């Protein structure tokens, strides 16, 4: 039972991560490799404020979101001046740099040794200590994020993003400031990615930089690509798929030592097949252009 709760928590965390990445990839048509960096910043800022400054979960989360917004601007403003492929490469560069800062600035982040002893949130003296309580907490907080993301996607803003994705030139001929829209989308995407970071940190009670690598971005990307981009249900389907697949493998008695490798092979195969046969993913709307 507690294992199912664990899965639910992971699902809630990763659905916000994939839906926020979808805002960039599926709605704006921007392929970014930097998503795990914002996930990580959310985790680290929340953690450091809670542990070193004794803050509560929500005040720390608030600052973490602000930090993610600032970081998104730093990444987006120069990168979005670059055309297509170079933009992708720039986000990859930023992801690597941010990871290296988390990994090597040992004085601040403890580097590879990680930060243990992260407290659970406390409300009015009651700690969200049990796994059950945390799963409720996580689902609620993620639910709010998902709701807001859904509203954004369905709003006129979301519609114009899709228009920009489909034809930038036609959109600018309608008077839309393309650059500004893209920066806004990027910042929103990064801000929303920081919340699961805080959830993850407080749940695991320990974080280290290896949870926020380039491969982590690729993992979130595969959820978006497999499930499908450009609508709401696609990334959710994808998240369910990538989170539950390991469980399915366990069912087949694949030994734990090789399970991660087998899992990755299966993700890779799935993506290959989908790119060939159904680039809009299992449940998505947007065929990558």
């Amino acid at each position, binding site marked *: 039972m507690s294992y199912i709760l664990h899965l639910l928590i992971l699902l809630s965390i990763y659905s916000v991560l994939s839906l926020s990445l979808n805002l960039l990839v599926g709605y704006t048509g921007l392929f970014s490799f930097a998503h795990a960096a914002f996930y990580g910043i959310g985790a680290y800022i929340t953690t450091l404020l809670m542990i070193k400054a004794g803050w509560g979960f929500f005040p720390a989360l608030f600052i973490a979101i602000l930090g993610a917004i600032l970081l998104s601007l730093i990444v987006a403003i*120069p990168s979005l001046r670059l055309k297509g492929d170079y933009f992708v490469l720039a986000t990859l560069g930023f992801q690597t740099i941010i990871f290296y800062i988390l990994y090597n600035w040992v004085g601040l982040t403890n580097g590879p040794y990680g930060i243990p002893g992260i407290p659970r949130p406390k409300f009015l003296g009651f700690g969200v200590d049990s796994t059950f309580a945390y799963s409720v907490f996580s689902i609620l907080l993620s639910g709010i994020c998902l709701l807001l993301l859904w509203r954004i996607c369905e709003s006129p803003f979301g519609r114009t993003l899709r228009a920009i994705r489909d034809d930038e030139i036609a959109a600018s001929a309608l008077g839309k400031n393309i650059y500004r829209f893209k920066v806004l989308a990027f910042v929103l995407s990064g801000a929303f990615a920081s919340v699961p970071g805080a959830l993850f940190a407080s749940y695991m009670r320990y974080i280290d930089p290896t949870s926020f690598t380039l491969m982590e971005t690729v993992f979130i990307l595969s959820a978006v690509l497999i499930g499908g981009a450009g609508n709401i249900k696609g990334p959710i389907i994808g998240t369910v798929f990538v989170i539950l697949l390991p469980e399915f493998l366990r069912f087949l008695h694949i030994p734990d030592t090789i399970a991660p490798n087998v899992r990755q092979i299966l993700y890779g195969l799935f993506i290959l097949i989908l790119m060939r046969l159904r680039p809009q993913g299992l449940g998505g709307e947007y065929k990558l252009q």
Partner: protein
Amino acid sequence: MVAQLFANGLATGSIYALSALGFGLIYNTTRVFHIAYGAVYTVSAYLLFALWAQYKIPLGIALIIASILTMLLGILIDIHIYQPLLRQGSSFLIVMISSLAVYIITVNIIALIFGNETKVLRSGVATTFSLGQVILSDVQILQIVALAFAFLTLVLSLKWTNFGKIIRAMRDNPDLLSLMGIDLQKVRWLIFGLGSLLAGLAAMLQALDVGIDPNIGMSAVLIAAVAVIIGGVGILEAPAFGGLLLGVLQSVVIWQASGRWQEAVTFALLILFLLFKPEGIFGQRRRLEEK
């Protein structure tokens, strides 16, 4: 001291330059962002490990077999992954993602077979040579020599041979080539074969020098991409300079700061170039026509 740093940087840079030349060859002619290049790289290193370190096949023969198999792998990836996608009109992004998927699959298969730990091909101390104040190991010298040889061959054949003309035509105007009756299939075999060979050479030289693990391919392809951009996209010889520059720069960073910051410096350089000099060192500033 500086001379030693420079020499070390030159040796490492030679590996980077070799793999950058291969990556650049493929990117400049076929426009594929060949992330799976990293898979070819990794496979090559492990082939050498398996053939030479495990099965004790003589080094020369092992190198040749590994090289041939590496070239084959590269060509097969093109034939079975990229070309079908291109034929159905898939975009650059879909091809790149498929390439990433191939990388993930391949690298994990290697991890399944060989395990995730670092493997060393040679135990014991390497033979070293002194040139003045500088000390280089036998492998390091081999790295520099290999680059010099490959680079010279490339430059000369690009200029003087038919092959060179075809490669340059492929970069500038592939449609014209097919109109002239040249079999684009065979040209692609050539390009992917050669590119993969360069990746293989770099990988095997690295394998002989330091240890290998299933993740060396990702670093390799990223550094190669950065070297291509720094050198200048569109210029087939330029990635060599990008690679050498990165090698020397990393050497300096190790000396000044710490080895831990190497990759960050590489990518910081990438971002600086992308922002301020996207055409690279040798490229030409393209006029921005349509936005």
